[in-house]
């Protein structure tokens, strides 16, 4: 579980990428990224998620997203990443 808060853009995306990679390299192969606390995300933030996905796939792991925010879902849709990541509407459903 990685809970992300605030706005994810070119300034904050590197921190997200770092945290994700750390989590995965620590041996977690089923990671849920909770974006419910994210007010804004652009494609640079998505890039961090993709970086995490690539890393976890090397270990045959899975990365899921929890997100119900309209604007964040929109950018996921525009880039087609809503078809790459399993997107859940609650942490419960992501873990279940």
């Amino acid at each position, binding site marked *: 579980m990685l809970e992300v808060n605030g706005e994810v853009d070119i300034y904050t995306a590197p921190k997200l990428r770092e945290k994700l990679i750390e989590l995965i390299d620590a041996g977690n192969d089923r990671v849920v990224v909770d974006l419910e606390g994210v007010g804004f995300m652009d494609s640079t933030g*998505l*890039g961090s998620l993709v970086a995490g996905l690539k890393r976890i796939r090397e270990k045959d792991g899975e990365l899921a997203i929890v997100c119900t925010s309209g604007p964040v879902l929109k950018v996921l849709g525009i880039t087609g990443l809503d078809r790459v990541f399993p997107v859940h509407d609650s942490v419960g459903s992501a873990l279940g």
Partner: protein
Amino acid sequence: MAEERFSLRVPAAAAYVGTARIFGGAIARQVGLSEDDVDDVKLAISEACAAGVREDGDGTIGLVAERDGAILAFEIVGEDIPPPLSDDLVATPESFRRSVGYDVIRSLFPDAAILSEGDRSGRIRFAVPIGG
């Protein structure tokens, strides 16, 4: 001439993309755009400014918004906004990142223009109808 003109200039560093986004969002909200349109404007500005960010943090990014009747037009200008990739170009991670950003802008605002002057200096324009 535009009825109302807003402009901003910040250093071309990642830290100030949020400042430009907040500024653009505040204008968009103030002229009466819907919250959905305000979100689109913020996303497009964020992508455009991200394209203008320089690793060395030098240079500036300019944002101009002009309200002219029922149109709110934005222009983002940077010394380091490269032209969109031609398809046969080998993408570096950096150029790939930018091209995703340009794609986002164009899907939000299909009439968006990404204009370059020479190799790197460029401007990105898009416009939103007010109350449309």
